[in-house]
């Protein structure tokens, strides 16, 4: 069980935690943070595997992921702001009008 395998397991664990966080946590902001966690878990695994396969493509992808994560949050925050302004609560289950 060399160092890289360990790191890979850590990445998978982080990913699982992130996903569970989105599923369980009520608070919208925490859900967004968990999504970030999932992305970073993917980054970690990318970097580990780049090191393992001794190629740089994985590392390049990590930068792209940072850019995309930033853009995503840039969109998510205004949505959350607008939602909160209407319903004055951060609880995700308050926003369940669209159903059926």
């Amino acid at each position, binding site marked *: 069980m060399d160092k890289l395998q360990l790191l890979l397991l850590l990445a998978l664990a982080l990913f699982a935690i992130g996903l569970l966080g989105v599923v369980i946590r009520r608070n919208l902001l925490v859900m967004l943070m968990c999504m970030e966690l999932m992305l970073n878990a*993917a980054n970690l695994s990318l970097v580990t595997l780049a090191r393992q396969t001794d190629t740089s493509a994985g590392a390049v992808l990590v930068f*792209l992921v940072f850019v995309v994560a930033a853009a995503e949050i840039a969109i998510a925050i205004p949505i959350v702001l607008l939602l909160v302004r209407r319903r004055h609560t951060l609880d995700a289950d308050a926003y369940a009008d*669209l159903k059926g």
Partner: protein
Amino acid sequence: MNRHGFSWLDIAVALAPENLLLLGIVAILAVEILAPKPRGALVVAFSALALATVAALVLWAGGVVAEPFPGEFTVEPGASLAKAVVLALTLPVLLLARDEFPQSGPFHVLLLSSLYGVCLMLSADSFLTLFLGLEMLSLPVYVLVLLAFRRPESLEAALKYLVLGGAATATFLLGVSLLYGGTGTMSLAAFTVALSVHDPMATAAVVLVLVAFFLKAAVVPFHAWAPDAYEGATVPVTAYMAVVVKAGVLLAVLRLFGEAPLPGPIVDLVAVLPLLSIVWGNLAAMRQKSFRRMIAYSSIAHAGYLFYALLGDGPGRYEAVVFYVVAYGLMNLLAFAALPRTADDAARDHLDRFRGMFHRNPFGATMLGIAMLSLAGIPPLPGFVAKFLIFKNVMAAGYTTYAVLGLVGSYLGIYFYLRVIQLMFMSPAEGPAEPRTAVRRAVGTCIVCLVPALLLALFPGAVIGRG
């Protein structure tokens, strides 16, 4: 070719469609910033889009093959045709948007950038470009859904779409990383290699990537966001999501799978879930009150049909998906174009308002009727020929049981399509006639959608078997 390994000429020519889109985006932004009273965004966007479509068609017709960024981005006739199709399908969306977003700069910029993402994805050779294209396609759409913020639901819709889009991206990345770990390269060929090799990590990688695309294409059980997102967004954005985003995702999946035959477990994966979504989509659509929500479930079912095409053997797949996308896309756009214009966007598509529409707006009702019939797959309309093509391929590849089950699933869908026609034609209800101007504007969009579709239906031979 200069020392960096790419030639300026290649970039200019091969990337013509993308460049033209970029030009359009820049022009709109310039007008937005500089002009005191910004207008003309539609004209610029429309012309940029039209030129890009023409460029893509020229590249396809010319059979141009180029690798402006070797290993990352290649241009070949197949990709060019896909781009041309996707860009062409967006033209009616622009026409549709003339009511909600009359000269609104942001809408058109977001639309063009989303299209840029699609073009990137369709020519991607490596997961880097594919990832970039996928995200560039999705992010603008989250905002587009948000643009209808006069309606509270659009916020909730955008949120759900974003969260699930994010989950898809994360899964995609994890899958890519595992693939990358397994094969050491980021090129798409790694996926086809992983398909055939029988080791758990490779299969897990393939499954994760597939889940990402299932999420994007809204296949059951990853479809939950679609009905809410479609209902929350304004009509043109819903049309864009239902037609262009879905087409782009499916064409990308097609590029991913290439012409490799599917191994056992993956076949069941690619067959069972689409079959489930055909049945689920067609059944759930029966009870919908809102037109857009019904179209959402219908598009879930159609995503099922599109994924079915993957069951067919290699070369036939591409042709089937492109034909289906065109036929399905045009008819969906025709349906949206024929929707009655009302001030309040939400009430606009409430199915009860469809009662007796034939008496109020005969042209619109007929167009909507034709669109519904085609989506139901009833000959002699294009929907039937497209469905025939897909099921022919599936059966030719030997999966007869899946084909029969798929056909029976599509039978379930006939009811709710005909219910719309029943509401419009057979349940008389009074109401003011549709304002002349609105009808005249709809006529243009409808003709643009209807004529090519009917030509496709009457002379499929011209397109099929040629590619």
